[in-house]
């Protein structure tokens, strides 16, 4: 329904999809401009950075396509329209996800895929079955980790109902962070996104295995394959928080 409604203003829809495609590509344009001045950034070449960039873009794009509307929860709590969702015989999470479902967000997935494919064509990777399998596993688990962050952020808004921006720090901020090699950042920051908000499992750890790079934290090698487990571990507290938020929800009004 939301797909059809956005199609009603066709010029606007075309502009938005194109905008979404170009917009998510702007960061990459920035990286290209950087690499017009340098050969390596944090010890990584352009093709390697593009691999990291493509991987996080696809994961984030998929999560954003499915759950990107979770930040509307705050507004719904504020204006009381959350109630409408509660009385319908469909899981609330599914309804929130479908609320204003925006097909234009395919733009980011497409753009990320293009960069990823380009980087794979430029990289000289010694492909083994393990490495080959790690790429799709990385993309899917990454999307799941971002998805859990979206849901946790939405749950947080049941309490702080106009703080949807905090979520952006983790979602968009995380996506920006993971575009660059971990060697660029201070070790405390890398530790933070490995152990506190485990975004490093979206692409940094598996990508280092694929690219044959050493991990700056010197973590055990099997962690490179832990992304699906981490994704699962993220969804448990996120789902619990969502349920707690929904249960604790009191409608607005006097």
């Amino acid at each position: 329904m939301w797909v059809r409604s956005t199609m009603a203003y066709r010029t606007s829809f075309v502009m938005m999809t194109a905008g979404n495609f170009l917009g998510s590509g702007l960061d990459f344009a920035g990286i290209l401009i950087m690499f017009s001045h340098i050969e390596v950034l944090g010890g990584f070449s352009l093709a390697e950075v593009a691999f990291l960039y493509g991987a996080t873009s696809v994961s984030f794009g998929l999560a954003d396509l499915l759950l990107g509307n979770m930040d509307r929860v705050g507004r719904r709590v504020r204006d009381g329209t959350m109630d409408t969702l509660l009385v319908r015989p469909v899981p609330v999470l599914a309804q929130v996800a479908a609320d204003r479902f925006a097909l234009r967000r395919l733009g980011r997935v497409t753009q990320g895929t293009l960069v990823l494919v380009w980087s794979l064509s430029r990289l000289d990777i010694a492909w083994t079955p393990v490495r080959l399998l790690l790429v799709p596993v990385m993309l899917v688990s990454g999307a799941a980790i971002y998805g859990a962050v979206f849901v946790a952020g939405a749950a947080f808004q049941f309490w702080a109902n106009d703080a949807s921006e905090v979520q952006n720090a983790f979602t968009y901020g995380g996506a920006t962070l993971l575009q660059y090699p971990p060697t660029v950042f201070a070790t405390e920051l890398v530790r933070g996104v490995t152990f506190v908000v485990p975004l490093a499992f979206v692409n940094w750890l598996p990508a280092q295995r694929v690219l044959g790079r050493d991990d700056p934290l010197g973590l055990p090698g099997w962690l490179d394959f832990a992304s699906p487990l981490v994704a699962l571990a993220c969804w448990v507290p996120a789902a619990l928080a969502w349920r707690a938020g929904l249960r604790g929800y009191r409608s607005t009004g006097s």
Partner: protein
Amino acid sequence: MRLYAAVAVSGFRRHATYRVATAAGVFTNTVFGFIVAYTFVALWAERPHLGGYDRTQALTFVWVTQALLAAASLLGGGFQEELQERIRSGDIVVDLYRPADLQLWWLAAELGRAAFQLLGRGVVPLAVGALAFELALPADPLLWLVFLLSVLLGIVVGFGLRYLVALCAFWLLDGAGVNTLSGLLCIFFSGILLPLNVFPGALGEVVRVLPWATMLQVPADVLLGRHHGAGLAAALAFQAAWAVVLLGAGRAVQAVATRKVVVQGG
């Protein structure tokens, strides 16, 4: 004049009510500041003096960006969606009947909002940045005053641009598409992505004379003390010229648009 001052004050107050949202914004700006700052450190380690900035100046640029992000609506979040919604719903007719000028009314509200955002979301990220990194902030209070003037001019230019974008709703009804494109131009050409001095060759020459350059690049360079004497006057005149041109264009488009308004309704 009193009327517009009152509108500006109410714009300030309106945004000051959202305390949690402001705190959330400060948090996000600070997180992004750190991420971009580290990438700039890596970039400037490879190429010291890239774009004529040394490392401290480049880091100052990062944190000034985060401080101005909300005030100059560099990533959107300004008034245009609200104005477009009024155009789409037909409420604009009420506004046009008011004994106030439409453009000045919105400009006043926007300046009030920007003033709040500069205080609410600008000061803290810049202070955190200054604590965490070595920044090249000037000690001369006069230079800070000129910086604020430059910020003000940049905000007026930004308003002028987005007012034109908002008026597109008279023809398109749904403004989301033009807003997206206008946001992209702003991200690419204002210098949030990378300082415009770093853009290579002819592209760099072009982006530095476009109106978006007045929103971030010029104020940041003023604060970094890169303009002196006549150069400083020229930089401010460049901003003022774009402000006059864009406000004038907004006025002309508004005249055409209001002539074609057909009130929707039964």
